[in-house]
């Protein structure tokens, strides 16, 4: 099944108990399509219940990217979390597993090689 990984790359970061997820279109022409579909609510719903706080979205059209800031997503932060991956570095690939609706995939410019 097609997933967000077909369309975009992602990198996670951490600061305290807040995780960040940068999502970058592999083809910049897909940015309007991605920005219209990948809302903060959709990201929050997909990753719930791992994210306890708010999810904010920053739009970066010049970079063909979206930045998601997830509060309360790291079990107290890297120095307190008991998780195997306390930084939440792997969170980017949880998000990239999000199924891509057929209508998005057919309209996308970028296709997985």
């Amino acid at each position, binding site marked *: 099944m097609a997933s967000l990984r077909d369309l975009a790359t992602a990198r996670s*970061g951490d600061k305290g108990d807040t995780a960040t997820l940068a999502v970058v279109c592999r083809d910049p022409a897909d940015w309007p399509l991605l920005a219209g579909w990948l809302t903060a609510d959709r990201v929050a719903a997909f990753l719930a219940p791992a994210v306890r706080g708010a999810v904010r979205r920053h739009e970066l059209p010049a970079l063909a990217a979206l930045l998601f800031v997830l509060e309360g997503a790291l079990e107290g932060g890297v120095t307190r979390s008991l*998780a195997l991956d306390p930084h939440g570095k792997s969170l980017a690939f949880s998000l990239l597993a999000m199924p891509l609706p057929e209508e998005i995939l057919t309209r996308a410019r970028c296709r*997985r090689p």
Partner: protein
Amino acid sequence: MAAQTYRIGCGAGFSADRIDAAVTLIDRARPQAVVFECLAERTVARAVLARLADPEAGFDPWFEDRMRAVLPPAVAAGTTLITNMGAANPAAAGRLARRLAAEAGAPHLPIAVVEGDEVTEIVRRLDPPFLDRPGRPSVLGEAIVSAHAYLGAAPVVDALRRGARVVITGRVADPALFLAPLIAQFDWATNDWERIGRGILIGHLLECAGQLTGGYFADPGVKDVADLAELGLPFADVEPDGNATLGKPEGTGGRLDRLTCTEQLLYELHDPGAYLQPDATADFRSVRFTELGSDRVRVEGGTGRPPPATLKVVVGYRDGVVVEGGISYAGEGAVARARLALAILRERIDRRAIPVLDLRTDVIGVDSLLRGRAVAPDPDVRDVRARLAARVADRASARAIGHEIEALWLNGPAGGGGASWSAREGLAVASVLIPRDLVRPMVSFVAPA
């Protein structure tokens, strides 16, 4: 490289970064300055504990190896070295650097040390509220190990203007380590917010080293990166107006393009329009990357405005003991046996009333990393590890839990293998803000050998 540009590279993005890659960067790209950013949030608190045990300890554990490797090529190329590897003891690191410089044939190399970031007493006195957890430092009492403020570029600029060729600091904001030589080179006014913002942008892009040039990026078949075993470290050719061209040494592995630069630009940002730093509030919203071909990328468009009136301080505190262990299962029913093992562990901890502050269990291979709906509902996985991690108050409780994990050998489900556990002292951090005028950075030069 045009005559007016200043080439600055990054020789390490964390303490355990590769050392030979920095030698290649200096030898092949011959930057005017190379920065080694090696201080994670919790590192300084650990270093303070090391310094308490030994007054000549408390700096980066790889400092000696790294400096011994990079000093000879840096002396030969005329490259200035700037690093926060001084951690909790920049003065002791400076004395060691003096001996290593003499070994490298440069006994009179000007080496400066920046101190004044340790603000433990100020934080105890002001007791400001935590930004990222409830309460204030006073609630932690004697558990507090140290408090260190993120210094800005000013003391490093001062050291460079006084002729330093090696600058060793403790806690300085990571981008400020890169901004400082640009201010010193181009004589930027410290209230020229656009140029200061661009200097911070360059620092932010470079500070994670290989993460800009194809490290932390490869996803085989989807995003391929050539020759990661010889990953080239990044440099920037900075122009007097703060715009720059990014590159990496010839003949090295990795890749540098719009995607690697954009992933790194947004890495760990909370607000691309307001990146709070001691020297300015940087604004990256209008940054543009232009691929120039052959691993060269032009970066333009960053800006800035005045910084906050406060400095961020990281408070390190003792946080119990963390015990972690597991046992592995294979074949059909492996996930069910792993879950049974974890249920047995929880029941044993309850029955023995081992006091636990916090506990978490996972099945590695199923749900230890994946989150939310990304977790597959009915995993047909045949190679898993049951994992338990707990925070407890003392070593005795950690040992009791470790004993229960090992006891699964003979008392747990069928086919369990590789049972093991370990315990470590917990050390956590929290942040506060303090007025910047209370912090007094100091620069000193290490006496010649």
